[in-house]
């Protein structure tokens, strides 16, 4: 299988962004036990922040990343405090929490759609459908988005690692992820860790959203399409493991891009719209073979693997 460098580059950019989204989804799933169906719309929220900065103030999307990060974090915290916390306090079932995030997704879609009409009206430029590729440039032979997305993911992973493993807060955070009741007895404020996880999840999603328009066209409804890939990535990784989300993000992102590209060379470019079918197939195969995800598989207990290794 030979891929053009461009295709591989695109696959890696997309996977980097997907990893940001699936790590965010996984973190809130671990702390609050609810899969956030609005994660895709969180990303589109980020895209619209970048678009606003670009159209109204002429700020390049790369410089909007810190702003998006803060707004996304605040959105995440608001969602937790005003929507999920009241429900968790009432001991609502997990399905009710999921429906609440579906409702949130719809509300966000409504706001993003309304805002896109409004922004389009005042700037007289299309805001319902936009793409940032004309604003990208090349550094040497490589597109800037490739380098930026790698730098962003490297910084985020490094700081996440430092935070979780090298600080006292990180220890408390991991403790309350593993066993909230026990952590609470030891004096950890589980509430803080939940709020923090939603801040993190929201900010990771909006940062990904800031960069996503360099890869694909954004419409207000993009969130409900990309959510399939995010879920596939998180489930492949096991839904409850941050490492899993990392591995899953790359597996789903790369296979989605490369398998669809490979198919398009055989069947023609018409199949490119079916990239999400690939994600879905990966998801379903994973659920049948190992519903606990890659990190849930007890690799050492698989006999044939053992015989190969020894």
């Amino acid at each position: 299988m030979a891929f053009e460098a461009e295709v591989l580059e695109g696959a890696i950019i997309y996977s980097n962004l997907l990893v940001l989204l699936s790590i965010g989804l996984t973190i809130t799933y671990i702390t609050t036990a609810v899969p956030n169906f609005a994660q895709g719309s969180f990303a589109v929220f980020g895209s619209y922040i970048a678009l606003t900065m670009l159209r109204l103030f002429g700020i390049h999307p790369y410089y909007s990343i810190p702003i998006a990060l803060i707004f996304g974090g605040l959105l995440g915290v608001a969602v937790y405090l005003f929507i999920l916390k009241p429900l968790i306090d009432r001991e609502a079932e997990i399905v009710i929490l999921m429906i609440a995030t579906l409702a949130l997704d719809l509300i966000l879609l409504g706001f993003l759609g309304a805002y896109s009409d409004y922004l389009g009206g005042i700037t007289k430029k299309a805001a319902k459908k936009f793409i940032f590729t004309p604003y990208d440039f090349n550094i040497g032979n490589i597109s800037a988005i490739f380098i930026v997305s790698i730098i962003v993911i490297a910084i985020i992973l490094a700081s996440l690692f430092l935070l979780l493993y090298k600080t006292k807060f990180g220890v408390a955070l991991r403790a309350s992820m593993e066993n909230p009741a026990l952590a609470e007895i030891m004096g950890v404020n589980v509430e803080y860790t939940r709020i923090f996880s939603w801040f993190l999840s929201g900010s990771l999603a909006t940062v990904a959203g800031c960069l996503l328009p360099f890869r694909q066209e954004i419409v207000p409804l993009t969130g409900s399409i990309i959510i399939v890939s995010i879920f596939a990535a998180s489930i492949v990784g096991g839904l409850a493991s941050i490492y899993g989300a990392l591995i899953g993000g790359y597996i789903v992102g790369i296979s989605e891009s490369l398998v669809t590209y490979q198919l398009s060379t055989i069947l023609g470019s018409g199949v490119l719209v079916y990239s999400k079918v690939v994600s879905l197939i990966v998801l379903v195969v994973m659920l049948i073979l190992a519903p606990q995800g890659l990190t849930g598989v007890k690799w050492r207990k698989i006999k044939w693997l053992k015989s190969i290794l020894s």
Partner: protein
Amino acid sequence: MAQEYLILDIVIWFGLYLIVCISLNVEYGFGGIPNFGRALAVLIGAITVGGIVNRILMATFGVSGGIVEASGLVKSVTNEIIAANPAIGIGILVASLLLAALLGAITGALFILPSAKLSEDYLAITLLAISEVMFMVSYYNTDMIGGYYGVSVPNVLAFVPGEQRLSIFALIILLIAFLAYLLVDRVTNSPYGRLLRAIRENEMVAEAYGKNVMVVRIKTVAFGSAIAALAGALYAYYSVNVIASSFSRVEWTFYPFLMILLGGLANNKGVIAGVLAFVTVKVLLMVYKFEITAALHLPFEAVWLEYIMFGILMLIILIYKPEGLIKEKPIMTDPIKRLVDKIKKAK
């Protein structure tokens, strides 16, 4: 005249949504299966009419070519035949409904297979993902049901004068909704319905009593999807065309969840109340959207306002009134009735 149309619109949407909501109530309200892919079954109903019945008619009349153009031709030929012979129109409608229910049941059972054993969150995610992807494929693939071009569908009431078509169609939809309601009401009041509630409350206990939870789930989703597919087929014949974009997650998954939560879960009468309340508001919003946009000086389309409003309504229900308008009642089997009588006498 305008008022008459308004009422007919409400009746038609009430019937369509009632069918979908009672099917969802069996699955989620009674069985506790969070089917976040309800829209898929409705889409299957529409595909039955737009993709399969259309192709059968194409083969019958020897029309060839792409489905988008051919469906238009088939439509005019079929309409003429139906206008002369009403029985054929009714026959096509009934046959399509049966076929839609059959295909709905098969797809429902197939698509829950990978996740039937899993916990609720995995189940919901998988069903939503499958439904979203199917929606996208049928929208972008123009060979199946015409994709973004859509396909035409014969007017099964071509023998009825134009001005009466809408009222008669409203009656047909209401009739089928009523039949579906009776069926679901009977099923949910049977031992099977009680088994569903038992599984919802505690899977382990049901399994300990020798019930196979996975098989019950598959059967339930097949049953629910068969009913929901009826709504898709009816909607296709009502609007005399099929376009994939009308079968979005918002319209056919989220709104049905909103209606059954509004009315009260596991409670078929509650569903009627929820659907009626929701549909009235929605139709009024649809009809007066330009007036609303103008009156409020909205710098955007009214549909976004609709999304925000119904999203917030859902959150309000979940947080402040989780039991809905009408609460779920205990099941009055004979032994329980006797027990209640005893307690009353003792007092």
